[in-house]
């Protein structure tokens, strides 16, 4: 060893091979013997040991490779080790059978060679999986804490959660007393029996509206021409209308049937709160004027009553509602008639519905719903008090009388939808849409 070896091969006297080599560099060893695989006592570990080839002076020059794989797998891992005849395999799966093989070679510094063949495979099963007590206990603690948190959150917000998950469906029972319980949902009956005015008026009362009613009685002789030179145009309209009403009515509206004239003041001007103030002032003036009650008494009963209430603080929706409610009493029209010649208004554009030639109690109301709806909902409109009802429409006591309104049915042939007919001739404040 450690000297060059020349090899020459001759065949029949002819050299066929010639090579120089060092034999200590050409080792091919036998595979390691007595490969044993055992468990180390830890999870996922195996201890492999073998017997090194018996060669003197070369023990520390040997290197080994250990091939291990699960028994059913074809691809395995290789671990190398030098000059040691045992090895611990780590990172193995628990409870699986592993196949282990070993081979040997020389390190190539002093001695060199080729890898030996793999040793015969040895099969061993790793320890079965265990539940680490620490992990189990930690899992329990964490889940317990989470459950506690969930419970706490749920208890503190249970009302909110219930409201979200099972939202309360509002029912109208609270607003309609006895409607569902006594009358079984029959609205007509309920209206007829109970004081439905509560239902109608309560929104008015509750909505914090401040009606400023303007009452114009047809029979009142608003004789003294109101000297109010710089009237606001809308107020002048009102005045003009009032005067017109006077004259028109006086001309022959004592007829009962023709009483059902509806004067809808559909001027847009009624809407402003300034005019409300002005109207109130006018009313007070009227009040101060002595009005012959005797004259009025009859007419009060029979004539049309025009009540205007200008609101300063109406709500839009409410006005819509009242608008709808007020419609059936059928008093509301938007008539687009050209201003009558009777109008003494300063403004030529005042829309007036004199109504005298338009209405009769039995006649159909000219009640263009569409037109009505098309206009701004902020019209003041009036409720017509039909014949046979004595209603006191004094502006001061208006609020008190609201509760005394009597309902009576009328056979008005009009376009009012049937379900609204029970609303006919209701008296309720009319609100401006301010």
């Amino acid at each position, binding site marked *: 060893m*450690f000297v060059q070896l020349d090899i020459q091969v001759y065949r029949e006297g002819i050299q066929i091979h010639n090579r120089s080599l*060092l034999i200590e560099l050409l080792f091919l060893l036998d595979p390691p013997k007595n490969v044993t695989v055992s468990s180390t006592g830890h999870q996922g570990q195996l201890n492999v040991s073998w017997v090194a080839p018996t060669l003197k002076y070369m023990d520390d020059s040997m290197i080994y490779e250990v091939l291990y794989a699960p028994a059913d797998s074809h691809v395995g891992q290789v671990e190398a080790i030098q000059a040691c005849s045992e090895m611990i395999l780590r990172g193995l799966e628990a409870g699986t059978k592993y196949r282990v093989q070993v081979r040997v070679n020389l390190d190539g*510094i*002093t001695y060199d060679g080729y890898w030996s063949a793999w040793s015969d495979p040895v099969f061993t099963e790793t320890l079965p999986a265990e539940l680490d007590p620490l992990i189990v206990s930690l899992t329990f603690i964490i889940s317990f804490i989470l459950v506690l948190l969930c419970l706490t959150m749920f208890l503190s917000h249970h009302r909110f959660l219930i409201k979200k998950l099972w939202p309360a469906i509002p029912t109208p029972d609270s607003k309609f007393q006895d409607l569902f319980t006594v009358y079984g949902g029959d609205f007509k009956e309920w209206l007829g029996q109970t004081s439905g005015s509560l239902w109608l008026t309560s929104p008015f009362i509750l909505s914090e509206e401040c009606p400023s009613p303007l009452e114009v009685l047809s029979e009142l002789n608003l004789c003294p021409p109101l000297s109010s030179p710089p009237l606001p145009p809308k107020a002048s309209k009102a005045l003009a209308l009032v005067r017109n009403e006077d004259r028109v009515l006086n001309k022959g509206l004592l007829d009962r049937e023709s009483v059902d004239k509806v004067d809808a003041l559909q001027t847009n001007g009624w809407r402003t709160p300034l005019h409300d103030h002005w109207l109130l002032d006018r009313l007070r003036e009227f009040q101060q004027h002595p009005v012959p009650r005797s004259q009025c008494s009859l007419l009060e009963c029979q004539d049309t009553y025009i009540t205007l209430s200008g609101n300063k603080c109406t709500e839009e929706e409410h006005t819509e509602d009242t608008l709808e409610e007020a419609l059936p009493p059928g008093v509301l029209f938007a008539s687009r008639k050209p201003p009558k010649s009777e109008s003494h208004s300063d403004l030529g554009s005042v829309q007036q519905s004199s109504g005298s030639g338009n209405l009769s109690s039995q006649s159909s109301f000219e009640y263009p719903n569409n037109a009505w709806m098309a206009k701004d909902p902020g019209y003041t409109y009036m409720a017509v008090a039909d014949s046979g009802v004595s209603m006191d429409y004094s502006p001061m006591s208006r609020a008190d009388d609201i509760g005394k309104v009597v309902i009576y049915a009328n056979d008005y042939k009009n376009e009012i939808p049937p379900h609204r007919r029970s609303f006919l001739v209701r008296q309720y404040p009319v609100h401006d849409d301010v």
Partner: protein
Amino acid sequence: MLRKTCRGLFALLLLVLEWTRPGLPSPLRPICDLRVLNHFIQEARDAEVTMKSCREGCGLTEAAFVPQTTVNFEDWEKKNAMEQAQEVQTGLWLLQQALGLLRTSMTNSELNSHIDSVIRNLQSITAVLRSLNFQEYTPPASTVGLEGTWQVSTAAELLQVHLNFLRGKVRLLLLDAQACRQEAS
């Protein structure tokens, strides 16, 4: 009280004496790790490989005597430790002489570095041997006519012999060194 003081003084005295102990030089720690030798062997191999690719300026001007590198385990084991050590030390001396000769006749700069490292390694090996308590070696008068020597005429041969010598006899000697065996056991 007095006894305590006496004990303290006695301990102090021992400390001082130990510290100022007249001195034999402490023996070198034995270098038993063969990785040192492996490193030298690898450098020798690098030198040999480089020398093989050398074309010019890398030749011996005159023949050099080198130790024989043939190793037969049975024969080696028959020799006693002293003979083995003698053989190795002679061989190392011869190689040092030859490499010195090569160094002077070398003109290739790249190979110079290799030769220098090889020469240094040989000196280190000598020191290792000294650490293993081998007896001091007294070199002979000349290299000519020594037993168990070969003669080489090329640098490549010289380096090859050098490599084989390190891997063979030197290694065997270090492997079986008494000092290391004593330490291990």
